């Protein structure tokens, strides 16, 4: 039985225009695996994560954790099991709170007693020394902020971490460090990752299985091996793989993207 089971998930936003962000999305994430969701903007990949967290209302389908449907609104037990790392390190930390406050607040909400020790340990685990503990976010670099965000996600000791483009806003060299950190933490703690990204290389590096999404639907499901062997069935997936190889100058055969934009 899958740890996180998403079946026919539908999310529709009703407002001035009705937007069908997700139209019947299904995927099953096993315990301990690293699962990727790849797509371009508007594909709905981030919406899947937000729906799991209860940040957007679900208008159809089911999400099951350990076989049981998730309560709406989510409860404390859920937050102890599932946490999320957001994309923008400049927006995911409160500008007026110190790192210490960011890390100790979840502990306070859930009634942990040995907060000091846990905060210090969390900072060490993500490679930040205790000198960072009382800094404000504007005194940290992008990579440092993202490490704090990762520490915050881990401090409640969840089992599943949802990662919404965790390195998209970071420089390449910092991205490598953060990806290595995430891999190490996953290995040491036996975590389950659901990683969303537009970057096929990042997903191929981090995840064993992945799905490709477009316009709110799952286009194809692949394994890392199939991705490496370029064995994709659907044309959109093939386009994505070709485009990820980079630009080829005039003279060389150009990829046929088949999309009008």
């Amino acid at each position, binding site marked *: 039985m899958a740890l996180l089971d998403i079946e026919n998930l539908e999310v529709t936003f009703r407002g001035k225009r009705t937007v069908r962000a997700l139209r019947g999305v299904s995927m099953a994430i096993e315990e301990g695996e690293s699962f990727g969701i790849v797509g371009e903007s508007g594909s709905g990949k981030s919406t899947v994560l937000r729906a799991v*967290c209860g*940040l957007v209302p679900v208008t159809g389908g089911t999400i099951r954790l350990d076989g049981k449907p998730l309560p709406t609104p*989510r*409860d*404390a037990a859920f*937050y102890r099991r599932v*946490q*999320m790392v*957001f*994309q*923008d390190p400049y*927006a*995911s*930390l*409160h*500008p*007026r*709170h*110190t790192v*210490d*406050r960011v890390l100790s*607040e*979840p502990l306070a*909400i*859930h009634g942990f007693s040995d907060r000091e020790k846990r905060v210090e340990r969390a900072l060490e685990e993500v490679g930040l020394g205790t*000198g*960072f503990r*009382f*800094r*404000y976010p*504007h*005194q940290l670099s992008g990579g440092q902020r993202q490490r704090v*965000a990762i520490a*915050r996600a881990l401090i*409640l000791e969840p089992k599943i971490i949802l990662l919404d483009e965790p390195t998209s806003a970071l420089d390449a060299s910092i991205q490598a460090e953060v990806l290595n950190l995430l891999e190490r933490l996953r290995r040491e703690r036996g975590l389950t990752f659901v990683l969303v990204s537009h970057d096929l290389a990042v997903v191929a590096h981090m995840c064993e299985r992945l799905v490709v999404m477009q316009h709110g639907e799952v286009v194809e499901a692949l394994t890392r091996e199939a991705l490496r062997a370029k064995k994709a069935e659907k044309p959109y997936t093939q386009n994505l793989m070709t485009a990820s190889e980079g630009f080829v100058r005039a003279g060389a055969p150009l990829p046929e993207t088949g999309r009008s934009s």
Partner: protein
Amino acid sequence: MSTAPAAATGWREWLLTEQPASRRQARLGQSYRTWLAFRRNRLGMVGLGIVLLLVLVAVFADVIATHDPLVGGDLRTERLLPPSLAHFMGTDDQARDIFSRIVHGSRITLMVVALVALIATPIGVLVGTVAGYFGGWIDTALMRVTDVFLAFPKLILALAFVAALGPGIENAIIAIAITSWPPYARLARAETLTVRNAEHIDAIRLQGASSARIIWGHIVPLCLSSVIVRVTLDMAGIILTAAGLGFLGLGAQPPQPEWGAMIASGRRFIIDHWWMATMPGAAIFVVSLGFNFLGDGLRDVLDPKAHR
């Protein structure tokens, strides 16, 4: 924990360190940096100076005043004397020293300003953040209530209060406070709407925080900068409104040396004995200007965008 060093440069280093070792050090360091940024604004410093002067004068009124503010001198010889060394600002029609009356009147001005700020600001921020955060019918209901209070002209409401409760400075303060909070509610609501969908709010929601904790600990601190600036800039208007009420005889009652009331009683003598109305008028002008400068200086410093 860090120990307090002895030398002055040691203090500066302690406050400006990049690695604060405690919450207190971090918070004090931030405040110090804000102060350093504020200090660069000369007009803001002038405004701060004026406001501090007001506070000092109010606190030490008994010492600074040269004469008794309430009891006049000889009604035959000391009425309506022009400014001189004996009476810095002259005397009024009751032979009272105007300078001492202005000095003591600063207490009333300060009290009005402080109480209105202390009453109106929490109400406005609470209403605004709750309305902005929850949205829906709560937002609509609270905003309509806000609109109702916004529609009341301050003076008319003060008249109503006076009719109901009798004239006096306390009722005037309540009347002003009740009509002052709606703009703060609107401001707080606008800030809340901007912040509500930020990722750090999503993040704290995902830790299981209750709405109360989110509003109090996460949203209010982000609204405070704008509200503080707005309140400071409003102070000038509040002083003028209190003066206006005093002018109409609705605020402080004679013989209290409220500046607006002083202008009212000086009105009749303005042609031949200009100092009686002009001196309190100048005092109001200077204090209002001071608050305006201070508010402008604060806005430059507290603007959240500048912190990036």
